[in-house]
């Protein structure tokens, strides 16, 4: 029977499948961070359990850490306590931790791939919904809650109901100024924030094959914003090229054996999916959100939709509520809308290629004097690489802030946050009410759109600057 990529990875990890019961699924790699793990370690202590496979467990600190000068103390006492707890837990349970002083520290979904932990065919979990990112390598990667973090720590397994499959086929070529971020925002705008619920996406088609690994990660990362548990891309030469030589990637004979296995993973030609959709890459434009969830997105040249045109009463109410929160009017264009902050960062768009794109546009320009522009690399390794290329100087000379690695203003837990009423163009993944700071108002967009907006201080169609 022909199988999809998802089915191959799933079947290879079922420890046991009892009748009328979720499968017990083996987890190859468990990523851990400071915010969703403390109560899980407490649970282990209460039961007198150990971490079953410390060597399959990797921890970092990203959510609540400051992105200012690392020699300064952490002023938020709760964040400091949480960080200390992560250090204690890692040391007590024998887990590798990329801690405050590690030169490889960074956002969990940036360092996993960067260090070669993330590999095709793996099952990967983390107490974080953006774990979907790692599916770009053809792994089955999804976010879990803290109880499940405890289950995986103790047993290296999870009880899982088998999700359904959903092919997202993207064919054709992207126009200049249109990027991976615009593909995924266009998908979510089309199917809605619940459109992928109970499903795992597989992104296929010529447009996906032509993307780099970092671009594929951007797309898989936001699968959860359409409600899908995971997003996957079949591994290919682009994947192998990215992984080869990375610290924790297989070496020598083991590498050859791994690549031979990985080549068996792509979906069989006649495999079928429970659902499917086709997007035409050549019809896409830069996207921007106007509302308070990632599905409320439109082409940057579009007009904010009018709730009066919606038939469904609940949808009408939701759009009304969103526009009131955002301070926007039906029918208005967002081009030229003044913003207070531009945030370039997050597990969606903080990798070196994102920073190169933004720096390429900012080079020789100054950012608008009334706009705060923050550039937050996804990891200390990304930061080092950017500095070796002189990107930090471009950002600083343009008047942007060049900060230390972390989640920063994507989740606004570390003091990097919007003030009530402020507008931001952000390369992150969520424009929920208050996500970037209580009362803050977020427009999600690509790094190119963010950089163009940084220069003008108002929402800008980057295609006019290329």
């Amino acid at each position, binding site marked *: 029977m022909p199988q999809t990529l998802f089915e191959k990875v799933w079947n290879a990890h079922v420890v046991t499948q009892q009748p009328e019961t979720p499968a*017990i699924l083996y987890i190859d790699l468990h990523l851990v961070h400071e*915010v969703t793990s403390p109560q899980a370690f*407490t649970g282990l202590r209460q039961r007198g359990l150990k971490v079953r496979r410390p060597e399959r467990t990797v921890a970092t600190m990203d959510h609540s850490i400051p992105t200012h000068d690392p020699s300064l103390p952490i002023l938020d006492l709760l964040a400091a306590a949480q960080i200390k707890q992560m250090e204690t837990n890692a040391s007590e349970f024998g887990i590798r931790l990329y801690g405050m002083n590690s030169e490889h520290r960074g956002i969990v979904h940036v360092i996993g791939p960067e260090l070669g932990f993330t590999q095709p065919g793996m099952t990967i979990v983390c107490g974080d919904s953006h774990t979907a990112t790692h599916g770009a390598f053809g792994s089955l990667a999804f976010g*879990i809650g803290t109880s499940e973090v405890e289950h995986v720590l*103790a047993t290296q397994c999870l009880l899982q109901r088998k999700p359904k499959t959903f092919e997202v086929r993207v064919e054709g070529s992207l126009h200049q100024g249109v990027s991976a971020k615009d593909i995924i925002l266009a998908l979510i705008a089309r199917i809605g924030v619940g459109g992928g619920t109970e499903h795992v996406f597989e992104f296929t088609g010529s447009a996906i094959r032509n993307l780099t690994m970092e671009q594929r990660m951007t797309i898989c990362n936001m699968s959860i914003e359409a409600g899908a548990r995971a997003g996957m891309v079949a591994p290919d030469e682009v994947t192998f090229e990215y992984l080869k030589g990375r610290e924790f990637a297989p070496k020598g004979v083991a590498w050859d054996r791994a690549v031979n296995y990985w080549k068996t993973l792509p979906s069989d030609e006649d495999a079928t999916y429970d659902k499917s959709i086709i997007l035409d890459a050549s019809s896409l434009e830069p996207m921007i959100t106007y509302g308070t969830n990632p599905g409320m997105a439109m082409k940057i040249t579009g007009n904010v939709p009018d709730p009066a045109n919606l038939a469904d009463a609940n949808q009408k109410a939701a759009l009304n509520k969103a526009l009131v929160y955002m301070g926007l009017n039906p029918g208005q264009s967002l081009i030229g809308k003044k913003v207070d902050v531009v945030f370039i960062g997050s597990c969606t768009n903080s990798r070196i290629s994102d920073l190169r794109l933004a720096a390429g546009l900012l080079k020789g320009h100054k950012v608008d004097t009334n706009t705060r522009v923050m550039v937050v690399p996804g990891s200390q390794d990304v930061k080092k690489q950017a500095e070796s290329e002189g990107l930090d100087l471009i950002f600083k000379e343009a008047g942007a802030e060049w900060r230390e690695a972390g989640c920063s203003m994507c989740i606004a837990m570390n003091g990097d946050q919007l003030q009530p009423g402020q507008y931001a163009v952000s390369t992150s993944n969520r424009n929920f009410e208050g996500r970037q700071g209580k009362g803050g108002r977020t427009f999600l967009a690509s790094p190119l759109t963010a950089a163009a907006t940084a220069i003008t201080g108002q929402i800008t169609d980057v295609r006019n600057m290329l």
Partner: protein
Amino acid sequence: MAKFTTISSTLMPLPVNDIDTDQIIPARFLKATDKNGMGDNLFADWRYNPDGSPKLDFVLNNPAFLGAKILLAGDNFGCGSSREHAPWALTGFGFRAVISTSFADIFRNNSLKNGLLPIIVDVETHKSLFDLALEAPSAEIHVDLASQTLELPDGKKVKFPIDGFSKACLLNGVDELGYILGFENEIAAFEARTR
């Protein structure tokens, strides 16, 4: 885990679609290292003014709905982040069940592990429950997990779906970790086979 068998309760109506977990419990409250006290910050930004006083037009602050153990929410409840702090906040406040037409996957999984029952109803039932809550806030509905039914004040019964395993876990207070640990031999055999 706390058992769930039956409850009788009034409804707390929150007719908003796509309520994300950032609204249920904003990220700034995730710095705790335990599960306690989350209920005080449930829906914090919708519930409190900047000075900390209650927003009187928000349903959780409406005395007519005080004591409701069932949250009646719009479509696609619990989307967004994987934070289990969301069901901790809901149960901490006193909710035992949430009714919607659909739930985000991770939220649903997290709820089931905390004795919080996600009840999926069809669009018509959903609408009639909102009508009931607004017209007769003191009317109780009865939830019986064993028979998977909601009983409305007029005696009408509505079936709701739940998979057999989750149902058994809730009815018996089964601890999933204990269940998985029971398969130690199978897990060890899997590890030996795939090494």
